[in-house]
């Protein structure tokens, strides 16, 4: 596309110049919708600010820590994650939330190959790599290689379950509780629970 059209530009100054056909299509569509008066540039900017203001959430870590110390809660979380999460006072974000429990035999890891579906109310905004074409295409095909690149070495006798978040459900991995934490408080345990361990690309931190 030629650059002689003065109006074609990214919606925010810090956005890079579109390079592909589809990126230009997105810019053009946005301009047409504003020309038609469906929304204003200011409304668009306010919406972006709102989305970007969401703090990376520690809610997920507190859910995991509770499940580690409270057996009844763990059972409930695995059976009906939405009501369990809401009982802790967190928003389960209007989606069917499913918690995947790691065991000594099974390691779960989550991807959205079609876009970037992610349990935002518990984990905040997805990391850039989660949205990358590389992660999305490789995790389904060579999960053990991808996990190794995250520093996660799994024994051959551990089954890897990749979960492709293709439609309506959202997934949170319940990582294994690290050894040597038997007398730890829930609050202290939550500090071992990283975002990446709840996506499933790593284990929880070891003390």
């Amino acid at each position, binding site marked *: 596309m030629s650059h002689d059209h003065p109006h074609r530009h990214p919606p925010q100054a810090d956005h890079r110049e579109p390079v592909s056909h589809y990126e230009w299509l997105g810019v053009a569509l946005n301009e047409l919708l504003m020309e038609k008066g469906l929304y204003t540039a200011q409304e668009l900017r306010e919406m972006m600010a709102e989305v970007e203001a969401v703090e990376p959430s520690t809610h997920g870590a507190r859910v995991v820590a509770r499940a580690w110390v409270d057996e009844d809660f763990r059972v409930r979380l695995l059976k009906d994650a*939405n009501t369990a999460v809401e009982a802790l006072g967190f928003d389960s974000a*209007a989606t069917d939330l499913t918690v995947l429990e790691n065991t000594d035999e099974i390691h779960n890891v989550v991807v959205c190959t079609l876009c970037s579906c992610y349990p935002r109310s518990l984990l905040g905004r997805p990391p850039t790599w989660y949205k990358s074409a590389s992660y999305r295409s490789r995790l389904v095909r060579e*999960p053990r290689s991808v996990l190794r690149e995250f520093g996660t070495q799994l024994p051959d*006798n551990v089954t890897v*379950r990749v979960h*492709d978040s293709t439609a*309506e*459900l959202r997934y949170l991995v319940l990582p294994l509780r690290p050894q040597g934490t038997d007398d730890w408080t829930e609050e202290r345990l939550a500090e071992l629970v990283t975002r990446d361990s709840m996506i499933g690309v790593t284990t929880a931190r070891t003390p």
Partner: protein
Amino acid sequence: MIPPETARPGPTPRFRIGDRVRIDARPLATHHRVPAYAKGQTGVIIRVCGEHEEPERLAFGQQHRLRRLYRVRLQQTDLWKTYEGSPTDTLDIEIFDHWLQPA
């Protein structure tokens, strides 16, 4: 994002947990939620989810229609000829009823 109130129990599901199913291989140029690698694959129903709006119609703002959603378990060694990893490794995916056939 579709709010959960659109997920309804609905009529009796066509498939049950443990049923073997084949994912349709039909090509579709417009919006749908079946990735190319899963098309034509055979797997097992591991969960019967609620009914949700049909994505193909929703994408074009057409009259809504609810479709049953399932979680289907595929074996990695079926998906990829050169899969390196345990033969027990799986890929679990969400597939709508209208993309599934008994296998």
